[in-house]
C-alpha cells in the first residue's frame, strides 16, 4: 500500500506525460494534439511539485510564528511550477491562435491532410 502511496504522484505525472505523447503520436486532430501538449505540460508540473514535496510538512509561508523552518517543503519547485504554468498557458494560447489560422486556410483540422509542406 505504501508503495502505491509513494508512487501515486509519480505514476500520475508520468502517466500524464505518456498519455500526452500517445495523443501526439496517434491522434490526427490538431486540437487534440494541442490538448496532448497540455497533458505533457500538466504532467511535468505535477512532477515538479512531487519532487519538491516532503512528507508531513507544510507550505513555506511563515505567516504565523508557529511554523518551524525545518518543517516546510521545498519552495523552489513551487516557484518553478508557477513559471512553467505561465509558459504552458502562453504556448497554449499561441497554439490555438495558429490552429485557428490553419483551419481558415485548410478548412480542416486533420493533420494528415495538412501536408502542404513536405520533402
Amino acid at each position, binding site marked *: 500500500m505504501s508503495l502505491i502511496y509513494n508512487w501515486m504522484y509519480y505514476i500520475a505525472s508520468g502517466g500524464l506525460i*505518456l498519455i500526452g505523447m500517445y495523443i501526439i503520436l496517434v491522434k490526427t486532430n490538431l486540437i487534440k494534439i494541442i490538448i496532448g501538449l497540455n497533458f505533457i505540460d500538466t504532467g511535468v508540473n505535477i512532477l515538479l511539485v512531487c519532487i519538491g514535496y516532503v512528507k508531513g510538512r507544510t507550505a513555506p509561508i511563515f505567516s504565523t510564528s508557529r511554523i518551524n*523552518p525545518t518543517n516546510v517543503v521545498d519552495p523552489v519547485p513551487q516557484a518553478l511550477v508557477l513559471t512553467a504554468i505561465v509558459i504552458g498557458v502562453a504556448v497554449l494560447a*499561441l497554439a490555438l491562435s495558429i490552429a485557428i489560422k490553419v483551419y481558415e486556410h485548410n478548412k480542416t483540422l486533420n493533420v494528415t491532410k495538412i501536408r502542404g509542406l513536405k520533402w
Partner: protein
Amino acid sequence: MRTRKIISIIILLILAGGFILTFSQIPFGKDKINVAHYYISKGIEETGAVNIVTSVVLNYRGFDTLGEVTVLFIAAIGLGAVLFTEKRVQKHASKSKDDKTKKASLILRTGSNLLFPLILLFGAYIFVHGHLTPGGGFQGGAVIASGFLLMYLAFPKQSINKKSLSVVESLSGLIFVGIGLFGLIFSGYFLSNFLPKGIPNTLFSAGIIPIIYIAVGFKVGFELTSVIDDLLGRGK
C-alpha cells in the same frame, strides 16, 4: 495506423521504463532539499517576505519571473500578430449578426455588472498581498482577466480599448525591468532588492516585491484580457 499505434506503445513502454528507473533514484516525499535550505532559513531576513515562494519567485529567482512575464507578453503579442488580418473583416461581418445572436441574458448582464468590481478588487488583493499569503501577480492577474472575460460574456458587442491595454502592458513591463535596472544602479546587481525591507508580515514590507507584483498583476491581467479579446476575433 495500426502499426503506428503499436510502435508508439512500444516506444512509450520503453520511456515508461526509463521514467521508473529515474524515479527510483528520486524517492518521493523524502527531504531532498539542498539549496532551498538557505531560502527557508534566511528568506525572511533577507527579503522581508514571509511567503518564501514569493521571495524565491521575485528575489532569488526574479530573473525567471522577468522571463516568464516576457513569455506571456510574447504570447499576447504573437497572438495579436497571428490573428491580425481577419479582425477588420470580421468586425464588419459580425455587426449585423451580433444583434440577433449575441445578446446575453439580463441575469448575466446584471450579475456581471455587480461582480466585476468585486472581482477586480479580489484580484488586486491577491497581487498586493503576494508576499504575505499564497498568491501573487500571476494569480491576481488571472483573476482580473476572469473579470474581463465575464464582461465579454455579458456584453459581447463592446470591446476594451486595445491601445490603453497595450500601454498598461508595456508600462508595467517597463516598471519590472526598470526596477531591475535601478537595482543595478543602486546596489550593483540587476533586480536586487534595494528598497527597505520593512517589518515582515506587514503590508509595506519586502522591498521591491510588492511593487513588482503589482506591475505583474496589471500586466498579466491585461495581457490575458487582450488574449481573450484577440481570440474572440475583435479588438481594434
